[in-house]
């Protein structure tokens, strides 16, 4: 197994800040917009961006929720069961501009489920997608992000891991390539 650093903690911070300014370009003061982090790992991206937006906009009222998509997956009964996480949406979605936030965008199936899960809370005016990492050329569905932290080219057997200061000790993005320790 090989582990390669894709984004260091210093560049990680710059990337998050850049995403925030891109969001502000389209959402002004965020009074009509809301962030929705997808469980389990997208919530950390959403919360970090919420935190950053609060300090940039000097506004404490940036809406941010957690959305679990387990019950909306299209592979239920086809693979091992997944333990659901919590959903917490303490605001009205109706007529809001909603930004779905995930850490790694791969096949796009999670996002499809996320869009279904989202509509259970009402009809948003617009839905956008923010992905911290975009694994290019690997989509199973016609889904593309509106905001991209970093784009990486990977093959299907590889894995992209995002570590967070809050839970893993450091902000960083890693590319894991399976294989023998000592390649021939």
């Amino acid at each position: 197994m090989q582990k390669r650093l894709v984004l260091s903690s210093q560049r990680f911070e710059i990337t998050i800040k850049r995403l925030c300014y891109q969001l502000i370009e389209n959402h002004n003061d965020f009074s009509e917009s809301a962030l929705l982090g997808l469980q389990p790992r997208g919530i950390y991206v959403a919360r970090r961006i919420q935190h950053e937006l609060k300090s940039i906009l000097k506004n404490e009222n940036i809406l941010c929720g957690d959305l679990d998509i387990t019950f909306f997956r299209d592979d239920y009964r086809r693979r091992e069961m997944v333990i659901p996480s919590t959903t917490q949406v303490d605001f009205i979605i109706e007529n809001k501009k909603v930004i779905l936030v995930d850490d790694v965008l791969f096949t796009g199936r999670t996002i499809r489920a996320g869009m279904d899960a989202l509509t259970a809370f009402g009809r948003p005016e617009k839905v956008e997608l923010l992905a911290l990492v975009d694994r290019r050329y690997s989509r199973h569905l016609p889904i593309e992000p509106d905001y991209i932290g970093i784009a990486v080219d990977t093959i299907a057997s590889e894995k992209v891991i995002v570590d967070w200061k809050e839970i893993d000790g450091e902000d960083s993005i890693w590319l894991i390539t399976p294989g023998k320790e000592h390649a021939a």
Partner: protein
Amino acid sequence: MQHKLSVRHLLGIKDLQKEDIELIFSTADNFKEVINRPIKKVPSLRDVTIANLFFENSTRTRLSFELAERRLSADVVNFAASSSSVSKGETLIDTVNNILAMKVDIVVMRHPHPGSALFLSRHVNAQIVNAGDGAHEHPTQALLDAFSIREKFGRVEGIKVAIVGDILHSRVALSNIFCLQKLGAEVMVCGPTTLMPKYISSLGVKVEHDLRRALEWCDVANMLRIQLERQEIHYFPSLREYIMLYGVSGKLLQSLGKPVTIMHPGPINRGVEITSDVADSAQSIILDQVENGVAIRMAVLYLLAGQVQ
């Protein structure tokens, strides 16, 4: 935490591990949030067909199961014995196999005979959920009762629960005893000696015949309905005498000097097990039980359906 149930059918609480019950509860927490959304439906079981077979009357349980099934997007067929070929002499296995030939994945069954759910699980190729088999078990009721206690107190372990009334004919009592004991609660049964099964002390529960002493001991009183339809002979001299000895009134509760949470599996005989002022009081969590029933049944069906294939 484990990811799936250790059983393929839900026949009784007796077959479940503590970990199974905890998995059902944590999944039910998620479904409780789902059923409080503006749109209370998820697509998880859209490729699953469920048959509800009720060989015995039921309002609450059947409605609760049906709502749970529909909110999981399952296809539902209903069957009531009174309007079926059972009255023409068809056997249980034939009835069920005919239904299964129409490609049904899960059967939810209530039947007057104890053991009928187990019998069915051995002879037909579908997953069985027992919705009450005679005086044997009613597992989803026990799960929702314990879930409601957990919601009220934050835990089940160490809580003192008194089950009051007709223990002899009650599948709710038996399932509740198994469930509460597995989760570490203390259980007492209280009722007249004629409505107490002979083996009851072998289940490791306290037995009490004095209602006041039971209420002084417990944190939660689960008041069972007097099942007049299961009593072919008279087990107590008169209903009036039963009410005087085993009916809970607001006055009695107030005189205890401590709060006791009141539960009832329904349907209530108002003025018999509990008076109206108790049923509608802040101490009663009867309607919470009904709400939790849908979440618990969604969790059970979701977890069982995930095991197919």
